[in-house]
């Protein structure tokens, strides 16, 4: 259990801004990313992908490819084993292993444009590409569906049969695999008590995480069945679990090392190429390197859900919400998922409501299997809710921030998803926004200001940390979560804080799967919270041992020794008079006093503490082109204790920027043939620096009672409010409500022209 009865509130290291420990490697090009690892005798792999959105695979003939000089192995789904009914927690979704396997190499049917069908390992990329052209796949093309609403209609092409959960109402398409409902109270009475009820429909496009580094791995399996795998991932332990099952290996025989990671944002919680590379290496008897192209990243790795949503909210003239409901229809692509659960729970979480109900469905479509993307499912639902609240404020001539304050969830509020909130920071965050100069700054012609609240759950999870006290008085922390947002810094800082040594004395490394016990994926904003907590506990374990050594040196009871400012000291009047023994002094004689000193902690962390944010966006809309320019943007977020404020601000800024991209430009565009039309950064436009103003970040520090330093996760909440903040700003600037994302210039112009 995470609740800790040794709270610490006076900090010496935590809360400072030391240089990032990975900085030099990254700016000098020394950092080893997924594609940077090589091995003697290494082969190069390429994957053959489906040109169809939906088709039955009648046959695959690999003989000509196998006969090509330089080709050392060809694999298809036949090279993967049976995996039974195992379900594995992999980022956003608890996925059946069979689905992960069949997404890596299609079995029986291809389910989307770009679905992997076969793979080749050859002596060069050129030979591998030539071999792909020699693989003959006989397809029977099937009708396809890529739109969520179309997929839910009876009679829609069925993407996968037999996957409907028991909760789904009868009479819907077989594509509707999942249904959920949350909420409480009497909606009918609530809406009857409103002075104004607004009901609107919204859609959001699938968006890609847009990480700079494509997926890459190097697999090396030897003849005795042992294997090493280097890959860019948010969770090497889950890669091991999944690959071992698919390849029919024992986990201990597969060592997975996570490379430096060039962005993940949730998209590298999933597994796409690693089992393929391992299967090729097993067949070829040589190391195999597999690196995706950008086109492959877009076509075959994780976008978000695409959505269609209806929201209805009732409000009194003085701004009290009387009732709220939403209907959420999400599609996570060709395999079942339950992301809509998270959206449905998060939709109204910011508000204290007597009557609230959310209904959610997932539908299969012929799109790539969704992967997690920061706060999966929440930004979309909250976009729709916050848009309707803003429209109500406009129509009732109410201040949108005051309305949010009036209805804000607080300690004791029964949340819209069930539990009663403990200490939460929404009101403090709203008050900070209210007091900020941004809210009072004047606006010019064609300019608008939008605000939005946002929410994310955060969680903990399985965590294991080892902390070694080196004989020179330095400290080595070994943790098992790839560093996607500065965790090596924050973990090292918490170790230094607890031990009472300078941060520079601590180095934190990310272990491979053979060197440390299991750690859950880097997701759910869990690492600074959970790994940090385990590090504090491991440090306390080491401190206890160092106090014991000091007691032995002094010849007193260990209970008579305390740890203060990095040194053991006699405690109490009867302990005797001894000069303090520092960590370095105890470490220097550790071999003589009982051997090496280390601390360790493993647990399943809970008590992460929910997080709220409020964003304010100013935009200017060109009435002639529909183009939107973001003029000013401020993020307010409850971080609990900000361990390294630079990184916390970076998370808040990064979330805002990605959300601006969702709101204004990013979308998966499919042609009538069901094929992706914009699989590259030229046609899929993410925001670049010149598109953006400085994103101001205001950190609120409302301590999380579930962590001794008060830490909450900060990695995901920042992407939740921007969609509605931008949409509300654009709607006010354009003088017409926008209800479809992205708000690309043609769509905004169409809305402006349609108002007459």
């Amino acid at each position, binding site marked *: *259990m995470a*609740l800790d009865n040794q709270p610490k509130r006076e900090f010496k290291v935590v809360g400072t801004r030391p240089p990032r420990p990975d900085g030099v490697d990254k700016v000098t090009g020394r950092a080893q990313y997924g594609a940077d690892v090589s091995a003697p005798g290494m082969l190069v792999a390429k994957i053959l992908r489906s040109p169809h959105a939906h088709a039955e695979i009648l046959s695959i003939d690999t003989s000509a490819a196998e006969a090509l000089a330089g080709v050392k192995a060809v694999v298809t789904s036949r090279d993967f084993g049976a995996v039974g009914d195992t*379900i594995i*927690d992999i*980022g*956003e*979704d*608890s996925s059946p292993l069979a689905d992960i396997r069949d997404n890596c190499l299609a079995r029986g049917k291809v389910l989307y444009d770009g679905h992997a069908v076969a793979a080749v390992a050859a002596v060069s990329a050129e030979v591998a590409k030539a071999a792909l052209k020699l693989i003959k796949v006989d397809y029977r093309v099937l009708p396809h569906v890529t739109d969520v609403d179309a997929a839910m209609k009876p009679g829609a092409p069925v993407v996968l049969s037999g996957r409907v*959960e*028991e*909760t789904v109402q009868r009479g819907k398409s077989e594509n509707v695999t999942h*249904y*959920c*409902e*949350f*909420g*409480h109270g009497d909606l009918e009475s609530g809406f009857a008590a409103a002075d104004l009820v607004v009901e609107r429909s919204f859609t959001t496009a699938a968006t890609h995480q847009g990480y700079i580094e494509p997926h890459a791995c190097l697999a090396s399996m030897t003849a005795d069945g042992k294997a090493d795998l280097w890959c860019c991932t948010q969770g090497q332990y889950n890669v091991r679990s999944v690959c071992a099952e698919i390849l029919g290996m024992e986990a201990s025989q597969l060592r997975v090392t996570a490379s430096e990671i060039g962005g993940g*944002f*949730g*998209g590298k*919680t999933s597994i796409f190429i690693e089992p393929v590379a391992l299967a090729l290496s097993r067949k070829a008897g040589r190391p195999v390197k597999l690196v995706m192209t950008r086109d492959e990243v877009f076509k075959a790795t994780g976008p978000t859900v695409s959505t269609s949503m209806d929201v209805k909210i009732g409000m009194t003239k003085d701004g009290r919400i009387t009732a709220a409901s939403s209907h959420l229809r999400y599609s996570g692509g060709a395999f079942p998922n*339950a*992301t809509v*659960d*998270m959206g449905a*729970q998060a939709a109204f979480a910011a508000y204290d409501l007597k009557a609230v*109900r959310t*209904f959610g469905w997932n539908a299969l479509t012929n799109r790539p299997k969704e*992967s*997690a*993307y*920061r*706060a*999966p499912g929440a930004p979309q639902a909250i976009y729709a809710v916050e848009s309707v609240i803003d429209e109500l404020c406009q129509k009732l001539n109410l201040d949108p921030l005051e309305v949010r304050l009036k209805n804000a969830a607080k300690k004791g509020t029964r949340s819209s*998803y*069930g*539990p*009663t*909130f*403990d200490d939460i920071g929404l009101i403090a965050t709203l008050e900070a926004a209210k007091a900020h100069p941004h809210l009072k700054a004047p606006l010019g012609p064609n300019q608008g200001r939008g605000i939005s609240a946002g929410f*994310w*759950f*955060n*969680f903990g*999870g399985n965590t294991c940390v080892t902390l070694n006290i080196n004989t020179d008085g330095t400290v080595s922390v070994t943790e098992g979560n790839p560093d996607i947002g500065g965790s090596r810094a924050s973990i090292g800082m918490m170790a230094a804080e607890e031990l009472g040594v300078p941060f520079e004395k601590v180095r934190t490394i990310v272990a491979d799967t053979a060197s440390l016990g299991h750690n859950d994926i880097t*997701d*759910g*904003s*869990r690492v600074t919270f959970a790994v940090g907590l385990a590090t504090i506990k491991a440090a306390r374990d080491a401190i206890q041992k160092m106090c014991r050594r000091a007691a032995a040196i002094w010849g007193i009871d260990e209970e008579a020794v305390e740890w203060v400012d990095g040194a053991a000291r006699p405690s109490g009047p009867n302990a005797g008079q001894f000069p303090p023994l520092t960590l370095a002094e105890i470490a220097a004689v550790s071999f003589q006093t009982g051997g090496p000193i280390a601390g360790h902690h493993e647990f*399943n962390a*809970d*008590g*992460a503490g929910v997080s709220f944010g409020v964003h304010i966006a100013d935009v200017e809309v060109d009435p002639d082109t529909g183009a939107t320019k973001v003029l000013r943007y401020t993020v307010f977020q409850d971080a609990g204790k900000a361990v390294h404020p630079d990184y916390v601000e970076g998370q808040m800024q990064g979330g805002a920027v990605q959300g601006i991209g969702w709101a204004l430009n990013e979308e998966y565009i499919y042609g009538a043939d069901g094929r992706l039309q914009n699989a590259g950064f030229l046609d899929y436009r993410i925001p670049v620096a010149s598109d953006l103003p400085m994103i101001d970040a205001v950190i609120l520090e409302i301590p999380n009672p*579930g962590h001794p330093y008060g830490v909450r996760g900060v990695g*995901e909440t920042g992407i939740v409010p921007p969609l509605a903040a931008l949409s509300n700003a654009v709607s006010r600037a354009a003088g017409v409500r926008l209800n479809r994302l992205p708000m690309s210039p043609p769509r905004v112009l169409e809305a402006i022209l349609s108002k007459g």
Partner: protein
Amino acid sequence: MVAVKLWGSLRAFADGHEVVQVEARNFRELLDRLGETWPGLKPQIERGVSVAVDGLVYREAWFTPIKPDSEVVLMPYMQGG
């Protein structure tokens, strides 16, 4: 006895009850009793659930103690990115 709030789409599998009573001292016993008493809940429990106890959300933590007066809410398995 512990009062357990179910989310809306599970109520159909508990005779329409929003709150059900089970005898349980911890997370694991809670899920066992729920599955025994309301077999229709078993598929969801097997797919994965979280349990909020007095406002804190737990995933998988079998031995998390539950007091008779605790607020207990069954939730979907928490996921993140």
